[in-house]
């Protein structure tokens, strides 16, 4: 079947398609631990909203509050202008694809998918459920029990079970985590298709940045129960506003710098003896010590010849690793530390360990952060 057959059931969603999801001042405390901290979010109806953040930052908790599976300690949630803070989960036009699937083990795959429809006494529940199974390419397994499916198949059943209800808001908690790369990409395309064609609001939690960046209209990066930065994916990637976002979303080289002068729209910087420039509107701070950041792929790596170009630093190749489509270098830059560089394998010459190189970039891609930020924030130590 095609996704168009999954036309929206007007009875299912309380507020219809025009239902913005609004979280105001939401806080969730577990005894003395604050999992979500005074969160404000507006998720426009019909948008694909991604929540990114390290493990334990409060993503699942946020979704559970939206779903009504958890009561916020403070704050309110409204959907399409209607306050749903106190409503039970079964009364909300919201469905969840659980992080752990939560399939009913005693029911067939088809019964699992039809469960929500039957509860709402939808007439052709079975047929709709079959259609949803088609969508995730599992109709041939409709009669099986969940235990007889592979992890990836189970996850797709969970997806179908939620999507089939055409809820106003669909909450997805790492819905593709168990799928291998190829299948994952395929499902991403399907999900995006469903979302645009049927016009659902998706709130998507994922660890996979690429997934968030490719699929979402808006990405919010969470840390310790708060949203650090929010916006369209390219904007967030291009201009992170905190070291955490810069490091967590892709890789960044953050270098301590001192503002030596302000010239019109441009800041003059000094980094370990090199004179650099930075656009004023791409920096959060304009005086004193700041951090200047540049993405590894924005760096051009050239053999270190005498001519010291503007906006470049020098270093020695420490390590080169071939990753197929590209090669990742670690360069020990003088006075700056280790800098990561990323070059596409067009087939040009590769550098080897020990080569002296010069790294240059277009100042339009550099960004400036407050000097008080922790250069390592979000760079992976959280998971330890």
């Amino acid at each position, binding site marked *: 079947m095609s996704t168009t057959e999954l036309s929206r059931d007007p009875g299912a969603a309380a507020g219809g398609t025009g239902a913005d999801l609004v979280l105001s001042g939401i806080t969730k405390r577990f005894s003395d631990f604050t999992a979500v901290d005074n969160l404000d979010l507006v998720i426009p109806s019909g948008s694909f909203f991604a929540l990114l953040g390290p493990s334990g930052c409060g993503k699942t908790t946020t979704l559970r509050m939206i779903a009504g599976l958890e009561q916020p300690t403070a704050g309110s949630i409204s959907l399409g202008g209607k306050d749903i803070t106190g409503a039970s989960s079964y009364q909300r036009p919201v469905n969840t694809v659980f992080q752990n699937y939560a399939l009913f083990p005693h029911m067939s795959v088809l019964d699992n998918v039809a469960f929500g429809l039957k509860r709402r006494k939808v007439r052709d529940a079975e047929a709709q459920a079959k259609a949803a199974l088609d969508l995730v390419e599992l109709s041939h397994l409709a009669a099986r029990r969940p*235990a007889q499916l592979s992890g990836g198949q189970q996850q797709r059943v969970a997806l179908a079970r939620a999507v089939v209800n055409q809820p106003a808001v669909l909450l997805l908690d790492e819905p593709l985590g168990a799928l291998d790369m190829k299948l994952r990409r395929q499902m991403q395309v399907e999900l995006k298709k469903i979302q645009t064609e049927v016009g659902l609001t998706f709130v998507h939690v994922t660890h996979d940045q690429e997934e968030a960046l490719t699929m979402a209209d808006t990405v919010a990066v969470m840390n310790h129960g708060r949203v650090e930065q929010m916006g369209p994916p390219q904007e967030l990637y291009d201009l992170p506003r905190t070291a955490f976002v810069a490091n967590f979303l892709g890789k960044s080289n953050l270098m301590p710098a001192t503002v030596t002068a302000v010239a019109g729209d441009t800041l003059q910087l000094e980094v370990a003896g090199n004179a650099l420039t930075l656009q004023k509107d791409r920096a959060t701070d304009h005086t004193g010590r700041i951090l200047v950041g540049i993405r590894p792929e924005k760096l051009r790596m050239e053999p270190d010849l005498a001519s010291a170009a503007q906006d470049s630093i020098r270093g020695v190749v420490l390590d080169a690793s071939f990753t197929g489509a590209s090669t990742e270098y670690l360069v020990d830059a003088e006075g700056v530390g280790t800098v990561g560089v990323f070059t596409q394998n067009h087939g040009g010459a590769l550098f080897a360990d020990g080569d002296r190189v010069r790294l240059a970039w277009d100042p339009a891609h550099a960004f400036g952060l407050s000097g008080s930020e922790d250069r390592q924030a979000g760079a992976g130590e959280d998971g330890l």
Partner: protein
Amino acid sequence: MALLATGEATGPGPSTGLSSAEEEASKRRGRVGYLLILPGFIFLLLFFALPVVSLLATSLYIKPEGADVGQFVPALEFGNYLVVLQDYWPAILRSFGFALIATVAALIIGYPMAYLVAVRLRHRKLLKGILLVLIIAPFFTSFILRTQAWKQILADEGPVVSVLRSLALLPPDGRLTATAFAVICGLTYNFLPFMTLPIYANLERLDTRLIEAGGDLYANGFTTFRKITFPLSLPGVMAGTLLTFIPATGDYVNAALLGNNQNTTMIGQVIDSRFFRVVDYPGASALSFLLMLAILFLVILYVRRFGTKELM
């Protein structure tokens, strides 16, 4: 403790993945909870707790001078406890001794049974099912009938004794029944399912990959059992030993049918005859209460020492 296999046998159940603290925190409060537990609890209060209290009261009654058989008046005669303890401490000790030996024997016999069914036959669903039923089905033959059968099988003129005598494994006037040996055998036999089932339930959830990991890390079969399989099954062993030891201590049917009258007397027999022959309710109650306390004391020590969540 899941005493029995849960038919489905889909292997290890889904773990909730919660630590016990988180689990506690995820519990709900509310009236529904009380509605759920109240009927059962009232029942247990009325028909377990209250009777135990009235047993305690009865144990302090006295028989007035010249009163006829079975006639007592309420009192607070704590001396009753001294009297029965004095008369029957050997029977109490013997009961614990017999029960202990029977429990160990049942463990030695029951563990391989449970292991065979739960681990070795894990994938032979049908055979496993049949053997599992064989463990429970004897309940339906009535244990008295089976004990009586043992009595006949082991009788002096029976097949086993004759064979043992002719093999000179038993002296010509030797016998098996009406001996402590027979009583302990009976106890072992009759409480075997109570040992086997909890161990089975535990081993069924054993991740056999851990056994492989043991082999991979240079442990031979026996070491793997000693260091991994057995320690992991301890909760099942705990439950099994308790469920065997407790009823075995209080049992009197085996001693009555398979024992002789003095060297094998168990405390259950004494309580029974104090109630039903001598009609000495205070004495019988005092003994019952003592027995209950003693068992409770041992059980709590044991649980403290080895710790189990399976039963409590």
